[in-house]
């Protein structure tokens, strides 16, 4: 098997706070094969942002990686010195962030920012500009040459996000991380951007880590999906397997609550009872137990490990 683009092994990250150690990620195992699109699904607070920050190694000063490895094309990112890591950012690993309104520098033109992204290349300015224009065309921005001279606040949210995608793909990275790129946009825009992303992925061949809580988008875009809950991976597998035959109680509930799946008109939308656990004081055993309606005795004592072949689940009652 070819070296995966990203291979996260047993990653644990915690934050040192005034009130104690906040264990944000625990024993994360995740693989992204080269050129494939992997989705991460989970509600707010599941640790997605920490995961991204850990991969690109821009964690907050009070964060600590207590164990694990993050292998990018076989090399452990955690072993790299800051200079080497910086060389990868925006080059081999790119990120598209969630909020298009604030992700771009407001006082510099689009052109300036797109040129700055290419700062490692020794080409003349004109060549860099041409490349930027070409990239803008590919993400579907009209009149790209003109847009280079404009400022972010002149563009709509959808346009800005396209620019962000253009910037991220311009350097032909091996891995693109997309952090809920369409959450802040309306549904039509979302569809357009997802479509573009699919096309671009086919053309560029990069691996994509796509984070979202829109299950429909994940189903459409991703080959495989990982379900995260409160800092752990609870289920992973092909999108088909996980969405059609969910094994973990949390995944089941998540799918039940998806508004797109509701077939009958109803006044009561299904919700998952309970709330996220306090990451400062984690109960022993399975982290989902307080909200699970299928738990057994073992669930309170022993933490379930991720088990399985292609379709993996961390649950004591799965398959029973």
């Amino acid at each position: 098997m070819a070296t995966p683009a990203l291979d996260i092994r047993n990653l644990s990250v915690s934050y040192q706070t005034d009130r104690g150690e906040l264990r944000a990620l625990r024993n994360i195992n995740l693989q992204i094969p080269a050129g494939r699109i992997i989705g991460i699904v989970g509600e707010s607070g599941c640790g997605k942002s920490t995961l991204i920050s850990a991969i690109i190694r821009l964690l907050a000063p009070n964060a600590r990686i207590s164990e694990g490895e993050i292998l990018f094309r076989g090399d452990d990112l955690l072993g790299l010195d800051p200079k080497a890591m910086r060389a990868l950012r925006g080059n081999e690993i790119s990120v598209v962030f969630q909020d298009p309104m604030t992700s771009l520098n407001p006082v510099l033109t689009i052109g300036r920012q797109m040129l700055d992204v290419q700062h490692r290349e020794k080409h003349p300015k004109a060549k860099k500009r041409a490349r930027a224009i070409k990239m803008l065309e590919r993400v579907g921005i009209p009149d790209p040459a003109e847009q280079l001279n404009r400022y972010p606040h002149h563009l709509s949210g959808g346009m800005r996000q396209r620019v962000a995608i253009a910037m991220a793909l311009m350097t032909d990275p091996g891995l693109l991380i997309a952090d809920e790129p369409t959450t802040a946009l309306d549904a039509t825009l979302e569809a357009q951007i997802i479509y573009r992303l699919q096309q671009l992925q086919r053309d560029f061949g990069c691996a994509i880590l796509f984070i979202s809580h829109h299950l429909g988008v994940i189903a459409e875009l991703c080959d495989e999906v990982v379900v995260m809950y409160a800092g752990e991976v609870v289920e992973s597998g092909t999108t088909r397997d996980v969405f059609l035959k969910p094994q973990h109680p949390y995944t089941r509930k998540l799918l039940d609550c998806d508004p797109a799946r509701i077939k009958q008109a109803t006044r009561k939308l299904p919700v998952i009872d309970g709330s996220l656990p306090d990451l400062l004081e984690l109960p022993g055993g399975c982290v989902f137990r307080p909200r699970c309606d299928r738990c057994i005795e073992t669930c309170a004592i022993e933490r379930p490990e991720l088990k399985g072949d292609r379709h993996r689940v961390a649950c004591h009652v799965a398959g029973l």
Partner: protein
Amino acid sequence: MLQFIARRSLLALFILLLAVTLLFAMIHMMPGDPASAILGPKASPELKAELNQRMGLDQPLLTQLGRFYTDLARGDLGIDVFTNREVSEIVFEQLPYTLVLVLAAIGGATLLGIPLGCFSAIRRNSLLDRVTAVMSVGFIAIPTFVIALYLLLWLSVKWRWFPAMGAGASGDFVDQARHLVLPAIALGLGWVGYIARLVRASMLEVMEENHIRTARAFGLPERTIIVHYALRIAVLPTVAILGMGIGTMLSGALFAEIVFSRPGIGKLLHEAVMTRNYPVVMGSVVVTTGFFVLSTLVSDIINAALDPRLRETGRSS
């Protein structure tokens, strides 16, 4: 952008017009007649009448106002009754000295303050940061003339490091620079800390913003991020403050000029007030006010040039 400049300029002109009218009104609404004030209560009626006529004080108010505007438009600020020279000539002779002083003070304060603020933000709670913090809170409010007097006392009279009086021999750049140091420090000292603190606060805010995170995620060198991405936004409040600060500086410059016996508008105005030389008083105030309005206008324009968001709505978010 041009639209913005046009609009702002028109507004500035209007305000200036009002200000000047106010000055005119003040002079003519004050009790007592200027002629007696100038010549003394014992002056004979004929002398007073002659002065009145010379200064045009015997004509109806509206006519005087009209003449005032037209004269102003032509750049005519009247005649100095004592020396018979054109007021505009006198004023513009002294203006450069004041401008040089103010520019030196602002230049020094900015050159020191911005890097100081930047370092304070990057190295929070270091010794430098805390010293700057204390300095900046207090110093801006200490009256310029107090600082000037102390500087004069220690550095000039006591230790003789710098000259105590005048602007230096004309043509001799070094000598003039030496004469500029103490007054410029007196004017600018408070501002160094103030600017540093503004920049520090701004930087801390900006560095937390999402677009800086994006820049880091793209692997841009830290230096580029700090200087070109963050600082560029962080210095904006400074430019705004400086525009307003020029007004305070002009007032402060007056004191600096008097304490150090430097030529300049401040000194001119002071002497004119002491001698009740109304044309010169008026002329000086008109020119300085005009200059102040102009500097506020320029600072607004520079602001809009640096932060494109200000151009349309005048707000920055």
